[in-house]
């Protein structure tokens, strides 16, 4: 112990502390009412993954139903509408759960909460109480979703389109809408917290353009969360008034306009797509640079393209409504803007590829997911350009082509990015290493299963198979069967991931401080981090300077090269951690 040289703010040579954020205090209440961003992040992770499992089971039910043209689980034909009520409910819950409880809060809530303050070298987010409240609101929102199922279910699809959502005899719509309202506020408060944290708690020396790109992505996400979510709030509130009091704003019987609902809904829900995808893009920037062992290519362009996506993302909502009675002029403008948003997305992808070019690529599990992301997101993004084209969209609107497109973006983009992030930060969060071979195998399984599920959906969609149907014409049977087989492969792969991750908690190898050789600040903090993160603001350098980081056989992890000594601040007389040892 005495041999340890003071290496302020780096800590690579330190053994793991006995006192970390997991062991700092004990008891269930010390978790439920914690103000520690790391614990809140872990609780988010557990909740989001639970919701993901529930949504996944519903996806399996949907795919199993579609194994037969008349429906396998709930058989019927077009004349027997009642036979398909259960299918409609499962299909709605799958969408609502996955969007509002997994994709939107997933990366910011779980990984953002855990990593953001440490990446900044801060002790916590700006408003720890508000952060805890966000999580509690998330739970309340989830409780209302469960209540909606108990009170008669929802069969509107996750979009709650009026007039159907007003007149459906499923009694759970207003409860689900209220759940979405609460989840919206959870999302707003998380975003507000992150914006203030990034503005006000950056350590000295970390300028905007020295922030890790994950923080830029989270910042752009938070801007959308704060500026778009209130509109969703008022929209679902209107829907609740409509159902309970017949307020008439969206009801043509009383002079209202149902299309106005679609405008309001998509004014939020299209930017929400970028709430989902931007954090995943931030993870890509970290993972690809780290595992290519190269400085990120085009730092400023990646950073600013996040903000550009956030800004343009507000102006494209009308592309969800091309055939729904907009004027040709408006359709044309929205079509143009939709294609415009592809430019900053493509800038990112090309910069990631340029980062990998001539890099020494290490195909660890997070990097496997990053490569899947590049492939799947490219397909998802480009099919989005097809759908943004007016004449093509008239043919493809509300078909399985749309379903496949947004799954390529939402799953192939966001969920794959989320998985990359979980695998990347798992050693930091838990202090344990998972089984690398199983990790790669599961990634391959997810990749193959996913493509097998959704490539057939592109084909049958372009052949005219409408989305959301519980039964179909026998001509689409082979595509549906292939799709279902792919879904099963995905489900099995996810179970494998759950098994080896849980296994690593009990018998995984102890994680070193910096297992991957990344240069951002969270990797200079112990694994798992101590309660206070940093006693002093740490030394800030270039977050992608991998040259100064070398592998140390003794520790099984990476350390900063001793020959490159960072300047110590004059107010740091001793190592912040040594006095605790």
């Amino acid at each position, binding site marked *: 112990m005495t041999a340890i040289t003071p290496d302020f703010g780096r800590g690579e040579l330190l053994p793991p502390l006995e006192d970390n954020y997991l062991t700092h205090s004990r008891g269930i209440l010390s978790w439920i009412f914690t103000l520690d961003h790391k614990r809140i992040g872990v609780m988010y992770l557990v909740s989001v993954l639970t919701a993901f499992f529930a949504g996944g089971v519903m996806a399996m039910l949907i795919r199993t139903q579609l194994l037969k043209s008349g429906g396998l689980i709930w058989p019927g034909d077009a004349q027997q509408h009642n036979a398909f009520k259960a299918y409609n409910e499962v299909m709605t819950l799958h969408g609502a759960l996955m969007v509002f409880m997994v994709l939107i809060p997933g990366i910011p809530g779980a990984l953002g909460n855990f990593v953001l303050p440490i990446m900044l070298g801060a002790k916590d987010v700006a*408003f720890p109480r*508000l952060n805890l409240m966000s999580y509690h609101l998330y739970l309340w929102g989830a409780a209302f979703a469960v209540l909606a199922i108990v009170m008669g279910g929802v069969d509107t699809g996750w979009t709650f389109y009026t007039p159907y959502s007003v007149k459906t005899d499923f009694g759970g719509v207003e409860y689900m809408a209220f759940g979405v309202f609460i989840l919206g506020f959870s999302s707003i408060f998380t975003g507000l917290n992150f914006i203030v944290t990034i503005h006000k708690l950056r350590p000295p020396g970390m300028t905007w353009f020295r922030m890790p790109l994950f923080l830029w992505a989270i910042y752009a996400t938070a801007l959308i969360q704060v500026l778009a979510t209130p509109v969703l709030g008022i929209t679902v509130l209107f829907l609740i008034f409509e159902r309970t009091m017949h307020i008439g704003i969206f009801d043509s019987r009383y002079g209202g306009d149902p299309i106005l609902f679609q405008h309001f809904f998509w004014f939020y829900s299209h930017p929400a797509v970028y709430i989902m995808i931007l954090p995943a893009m931030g993870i890509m920037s970290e993972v690809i640079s780290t595992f290519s062992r190269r400085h990120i290519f085009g730092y400023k362009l990646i950073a600013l393209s996040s903000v550009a996506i956030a800004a343009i993302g507000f102006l494209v909502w009308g592309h969800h409504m091309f055939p729904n009675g907009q004027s040709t002029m408006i359709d044309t403008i929205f079509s143009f803007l939709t294609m415009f948003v592809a430019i900053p997305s493509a800038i990112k992808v090309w910069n990631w590829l340029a980062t990998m070019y001539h890099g020494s690529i290490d195909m660890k599990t997070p990097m496997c997911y990053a490569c899947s992301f590049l492939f799947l997101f490219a397909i998802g993004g480009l099919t989005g350009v097809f759908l943004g084209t007016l004449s093509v969209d008239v043919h493809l609107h509300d078909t399985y082509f749309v379903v496949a497109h947004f799954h390529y973006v939402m799953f192939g983009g966001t969920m794959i990015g989320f998985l990359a992030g979980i695998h990347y930060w798992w050693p930091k969060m838990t202090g344990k290493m998972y089984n690398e071979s199983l990790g790669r195998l599961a990634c391959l399984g997810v990749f193959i299963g996913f493509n097998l599920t959704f490539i057939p959906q592109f084909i049958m969609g372009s052949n005219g198979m409408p989305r959301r149907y519980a039964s179909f014409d026998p001509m689409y049977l082979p595509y549906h069967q292939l799709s279902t087989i792919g879904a099963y492969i995905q489900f099995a792969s996810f179970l494998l991931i759950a098994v080896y991750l849980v296994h690593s908690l009990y018998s995984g190898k102890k994680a070193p401080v910096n297992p991957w050789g990344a240069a951002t600040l969270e990797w200079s903090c112990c694994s798992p981090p101590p309660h206070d993160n940093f006693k002093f603001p740490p030394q800030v350098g270039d977050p992608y300077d991998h040259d100064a980081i070398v592998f140390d056989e003794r520790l099984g992890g990476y350390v900063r090269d001793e020959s490159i000594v960072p300047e110590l601040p004059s107010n740091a007389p001793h190592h912040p951690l040594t006095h605790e040892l």
Partner: protein
Amino acid sequence: MSTAAETHDDHHDGHQDPYHLAHHFDTPQQQFDAGKLGIWLFLTTEILLFSGLFCAYAVYRANHPEVFEFAHLYLNKPLGAINTVVLLFSSLTMAWGVRAAQLGQKNLLVGLLALTILCGFGFLGIKFVEYRVKFQNGELWGPHYNPKEMPGAAKDEDDRAKEDRQREAERKKHEEAITVAALTNTVATAPAGYHYDQSKYAPASSDNVDFASISPEWVRQQGSDTKPPGSIAETWHGDPPVNAQLFFSIYFVMTGLHGLHVIAGMICIAWILIRATKGEFGPHYFNPVDFVGLYWHIVDLIWIFLFPLLYLIT
């Protein structure tokens, strides 16, 4: 707003410091700046929450101007004006309260906060009177719209029910005509009285408004709970427009949501009032007073927009 009470954090050194500095901030200034940015962002979300309502208002007013010109006659302008003054005055007391907190004038701060809450009660009281009249007279939204007072000759229940049935029959007939037109590719013509007839519901020009009826006596009567019968009949000539209930949908959602925000603001002010009586605020630490003050001003500001948009249409 929540930064205020973070001193009881489990890893804080325990004793209260005059700056109420939370453990994760370096300086009181950093804490104040963070809170200020946070509250401004929160106010942005409040504006955006109301923006949906303003959008709905704009869309429907552009599409159905006659509905707004007609139905706003049911609102009580003098009461709305009094409420505007009450809220403006409460903004003054609130802003003054922030100054009192900064100067450490404890008793003045407590008094001003109490006065602000009192204004909030005053506003809600007047709003309650307005709502009660509307509920009594059936001046409500959607299916509940059934006003006692209508322009033209007084009509009894039977007449109105008969008219409703007739309008419904015409609507059905028109829908059938549209279907037939779509099938046979011909142009459907709407029955009279169903479609918005520009000439019929044109905004009242100076020729047909009887300004003589707006006497001081008439204005005084607005302050009482019941309106003089026939006042709408005197200001609106011709039949009432179709879908007049739409105005009341928007009126009740906008003012109702604003009322909820007034109540939330009053609860926040009550919270800092209690803290002020304990002498927690002074030149070193007045963050919550400042932030709650900003919130109260935004609630006031929203009303400043609601009042002319709803009450002062013509």
